[in-house]
């Protein structure tokens, strides 16, 4: 039987980071990845000979090289990737747009957001500054009981519209709870999006994944693709190993699962160990938030009709911003419109890309997908894509045409390729902040450990190994 000091379920960003960390100091480690490619929620696929990214709009947590304590730079040192080997392109300007009511622009210079608030919400600017001071001093990483971010924000901002605008952007970028979020998640998101900001590395997510894979393998780490885990094997308080989809048993001293909270529990196939892992009911730990996402490619001649200085637009049309599983298949009242080409430095390409994301109802899409009549699901996709285009056209002030390629992912697509239950991109509504479980050698890393975004996922993998595994070696 094969034996490893550390076994990792999932070759997404948190799994790769955990693996690099462990392998770096000469220890043997194996990552088991179900899919044929690395990346998990942030991966890629090819259509018509062109690479398309999944998930990635922008990476949060931008920091200049000199800021050594910034999460991004700490992370790169931990992974032993010299900062100067990465070319990072910062966003231009992003916008939170509530048509007919207000607009707030922000960039990687936090003073832009402050001046926008001073301009559009003059009565609230001091309240906003007071809130930022409180956020600055908040320790978001020590596990503690949940606190409502809504309550926290409303204690500072009496202006409901301003509060809704802030929540609209933060929830779309990482909210795993409906209509509210835990204060520590709010603080992490506020810092990573407004105070640090958006960037993209040069190239695509594939370049970043290839860099991580190379680093991992150079340190001696092993990874196997198309290698799903069927079962986690438990003996009393310990995990003894896993059984893979092919029936092979692999034993391990430590196991890190990046599959997610409900997804990891499902890997305990007998009721005793599953209950020991968590007794919370399934509907309490399954994330309810999923999305419909469309990618559009336009010919460059259409450029004049698209915003050229906007990187990401968060919009909301309804009276009250609603961040929950919609009653209909898709909620067009709000969404995210992203232009991945609108980062600093031009890209040599003959096409312009736009990505549009809306909240979507997993059950409705699942129901259509499972129908014997396969045309139902396809028709539903076509219908919602057309409706989305109309709304987005109004937001960006031009009708959407001249499309050379388009593709749409539904919650079912997300579930199929990421193994995330119900296509819940931001994972479970319950986070396991210290990564510990009721098994002494099983740890949770990634989205359900509660760090957010790409930098967060990578830091999660690093932190779990630093805090829980190294001291046992």
């Amino acid at each position, binding site marked *: 039987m094969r034996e490893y000091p550390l076994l990792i379920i999932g070759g997404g960003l948190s799994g790769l980071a955990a693996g690099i960390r462990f392998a*770096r*100091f000469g220890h043997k480690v194996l990552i088991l990845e179900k899919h044929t490619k690395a990346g998990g929620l942030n991966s890629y696929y090819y259509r018509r000979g062109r690479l398309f990214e999944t998930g990635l709009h922008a990476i949060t947590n931008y920091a200049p090289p000199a800021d050594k304590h910034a999460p991004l730079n*700490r992370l790169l040192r931990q992974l032993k990737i*010299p900062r100067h080997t990465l070319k990072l392109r910062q966003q231009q300007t992003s916008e939170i747009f509530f048509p007919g009511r207000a607009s707030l622009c922000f960039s990687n210079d936090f003073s832009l957001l402050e001046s926008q608030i001073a301009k559009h919400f003059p009565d609230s600017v001091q309240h906003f500054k007071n809130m930022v001071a409180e956020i600055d001093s908040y320790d978001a990483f020590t596990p503690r009981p949940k606190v409502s971010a809504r309550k926290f924000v409303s204690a500072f901002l009496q202006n409901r519209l301003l509060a809704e605008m802030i929540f609209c952007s933060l929830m779309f970028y990482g909210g795993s709870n409906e209509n509210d979020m835990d204060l520590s998640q709010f603080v992490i998101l506020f810092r990573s999006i407004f105070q640090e900001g958006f960037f993209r590395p040069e190239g695509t997510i594939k370049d970043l994944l290839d860099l991580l894979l190379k680093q991992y393998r150079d340190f001696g780490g092993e990874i196997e693709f198309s290698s799903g885990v069927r079962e986690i094997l438990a003996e009393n308080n310990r995990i003894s190993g896993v059984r893979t989809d092919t029936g092979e048993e692999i034993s391990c001293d430590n196991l890190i699962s990046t599959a997610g909270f409900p997804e990891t529990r499902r890997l305990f196939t007998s009721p005793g160990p599953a209950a020991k892992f968590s007794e919370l009911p399934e509907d309490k730990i399954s994330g309810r938030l999923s999305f419909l996402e469309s990618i559009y490619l336009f010919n460059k001649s259409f450029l004049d009709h698209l915003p050229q200085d906007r990187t990401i637009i968060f919009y909301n049309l309804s009276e009250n911003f609603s961040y929950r599983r919609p009653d209909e298949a898709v909620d067009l009242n709000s969404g995210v419109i992203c232009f991945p080409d609108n980062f600093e430095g031009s890209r040599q390409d003959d096409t312009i890309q736009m990505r549009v994301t809306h909240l979507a109802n997993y059950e409705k899409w699942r129901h259509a997908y499972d129908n014997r009549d396969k045309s139902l699901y396809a028709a539903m996709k076509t219908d919602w894509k057309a409706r989305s285009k109309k709304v987005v056209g109004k937001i960006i002030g031009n009708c959407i045409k001249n499309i050379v390629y388009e593709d749409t992912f539904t919650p079912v697509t997300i579930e199929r390729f990421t193994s995330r239950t119900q296509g819940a991109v931001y994972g479970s509504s319950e986070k396991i902040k210290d990564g510990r479980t009721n098994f002494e050698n099983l740890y949770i890393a990634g989205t359900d450990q509660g760090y957010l975004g790409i930098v967060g996922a990578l830091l999660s993998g690093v932190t779990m190994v630093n805090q829980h595994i190294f001291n046992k070696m």
Partner: protein
Amino acid sequence: MTIDEIKNVILEIIQDIDDEADLENLNPGDALRDQLDLDSMDFLDIVMELRKRYQIQIPEADYPQLATLDSCVNYLMPRLQAA
């Protein structure tokens, strides 16, 4: 190992952690963390690297003894005697 050899090992490990670290102006009697702007995660790397290279286990309780370059040398001297 001699004092200078141990110093060089430490400096080399730090350089490896942060290739832009300013080692020229390092004061051997002052805290490494403050001078190099390192945090606890980087500090762990020094410990892990020493373990990887010389198989020495440094318990967490001893970490304060690695605070400065001089104290590193004092602490490591007896432990790296054979190396």
